[in-house]
């Protein structure tokens, strides 16, 4: 009976793998690969790809540009309310996407909290590409922020101190020391946020709708097509599987690749080795 537990554990692993892998294989098994690629030429797929690409690039740029200095501040300074701030920033991670969508509508929608102010300024967000960007940023930025805060906090404090005693201004410390040393972690965070953003569905469909060519992203197109044109939906699904797998692989390989580039001996990032 001593072997019962290892055998049970092996069974559990087999079940988990089977359950998670079979659907992924099924995406590719049903339609031959050549035909899958062909289906991507379909209007709906092409438009969705374009919308996804545009909105995700803009969202990712915003997340990096605003998230990086914000994360640096949170990681390197101690001030009252810091822990609470971090918790608030992380909240969208665990929030149901539909709640995120309704919250965005309540804030920035035409009848929302800031809707009046926005329309007075001539901005109408709801059901536009900008709304897609907002939804994506809202749900995906915590993935980057969390990782970026952790990466900046992991930078050896004495290196920052050393830079300052060498005459570096706070900006130079950030750009020449903290940023390069946190780069691997930041890239991993950016990739995770991008993966989450690419798959965003719930908040987008509630806040931006699903209009082909303007707010219909790839996941929305899968949903829109699956009862009318199942093969197009499958093709888009296959594309998303491939891209997501590539991102995951990047995230996993990034840290080890980066540490070899810092030191040929892979002695880690601390000067004491």
């Amino acid at each position, binding site marked *: 009976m001593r072997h019962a537990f290892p055998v049970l554990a092996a069974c559990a692993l087999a079940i988990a793998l089977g359950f998670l892998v079979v659907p992924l294989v099924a995406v590719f098994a049903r339609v031959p690969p050549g035909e899958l690629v062909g289906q991507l030429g379909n209007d709906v797929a092409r438009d969705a790809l374009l919308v996804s690409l545009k909105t995700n690039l803009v969202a990712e740029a915003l997340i990096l540009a605003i998230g990086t200095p914000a994360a640096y501040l949170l990681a390197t300074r101690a001030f009252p309310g810091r822990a609470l701030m971090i918790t608030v920033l992380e909240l969208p991670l665990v929030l149901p996407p539909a709640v995120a969508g309704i919250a965005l509508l309540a804030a920035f929608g035409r009848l929302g909290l800031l809707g009046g102010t926005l329309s007075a300024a001539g901005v109408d967000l709801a059901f536009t590409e900008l709304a897609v960007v907002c939804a994506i940023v809202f749900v995906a930025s915590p993935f980057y922020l969390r990782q970026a805060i952790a990466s900046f906090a992991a930078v*050896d404090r*004495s*290196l920052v*101190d*050393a*830079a*300052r*005693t*060498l*005459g*570096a*201004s706070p900006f130079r410390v950030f750009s*020449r*020391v903290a940023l*390069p*040393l946190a780069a691997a972690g930041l890239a991993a965070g950016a990739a995770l946020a991008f993966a989450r953003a690419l798959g965003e569905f719930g908040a987008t469909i509630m806040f931006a709708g699903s209009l082909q060519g303007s707010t219909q992203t790839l996941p929305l197109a899968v949903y829109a097509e699956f009862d009318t044109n199942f093969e197009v939906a499958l093709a888009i699904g296959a594309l998303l599987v491939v891209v997501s797998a590539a991102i995951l692989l990047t995230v996993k390989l990034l840290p080890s690749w980066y540490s070899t580039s*810092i*030191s*040929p*001996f892979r*002695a*880690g*990032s*601390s*000067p*004491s*080795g």
Partner: protein
Amino acid sequence: MVLNLDLTLPRRFFPVRLTLEVGRETVALVGPSGAGKSSVLRAVAGLERAARGRIVCGGEVWLDSDRRVSRPPERRSVGLVFQEYALFPHLSVAANVAFGGRRERPDLLERFRIGHLARARPAELSGGERQRVALARALARDPEVLLLDEPMAALDPHTRAAVRAELHELLRDLDLPTIVVTHDFEDAAALAGRVGVLVEGRLLQLDAPAELVAAPRDAFVAGFTGANVLPGSAARSAGGLTRVELDTGPVVYSTDGAEGSVSVVVFPWEVALAREPADESSLNHLRAEVASLVSLGNRVRVRVGPLTAEVSAASSDRLGLRPGEPIVASFKATATRLLPR
């Protein structure tokens, strides 16, 4: 150029209070870890935000908490060599050295014999090489004050002696107000003209190394300089001698005058070892087993009962010293210092 410190540093268990004037000389701060030595250096560099008091360097006020003056680190002209050196792991040796002055410094690379390592990353260097890079980097900004935090701690014992001599020469040539922090009295004595003993935030004694050895102001300072410190109680005795009954039982004599609770201070090199009490001038004899032998090149440190003796390797061989064997440790009453407890 003079660096003037009058500092109070709040810390968790005790505040550090230090008043110190450093001219063109090297002052060492020694003491056990956690005594607040590194905090003093960090305060001078501007990295300790809680520092109170005044820091004036060559007429420039770096800190005056009464007048709410506190220059940020980048506006204080200090070269700080960190413990473990804190070299930038993502930059080459040349870029590390160029960081402060914002230009390449081939002259400094040559001076510190690291020119051939210019393209190397810190992780590829030995301890001694890292130390030289750290020094070159700290000096690249032509600082007015040099601060060294445990500069020898990251070195292995083989390179230590050579590096110590080299560093001593460098500090003499630089002729800058320099503060070295170390927990090793030998390093301090080798590098500094004056040594301050900092314990629990207080400066117990600040003197030339020889003076600390000859006239330690208290038992802690004596212990720190490497002396044996044995507690006992003293009473006047015949012939102008003081008789001390050690807490462990034996009786020893000293030419120092004292009464009541004292610490008996004897340096290891004042302790002679023999198989039998010899007919010589030493008054003090302790018979005990050899507890341990540690070889230090041509010297041997012998632990005998409560004492540590230091004898030449030759006499250790002649006596055939072995752990567990009884031996007599002798020292003169004139070499026996008494400090009040």
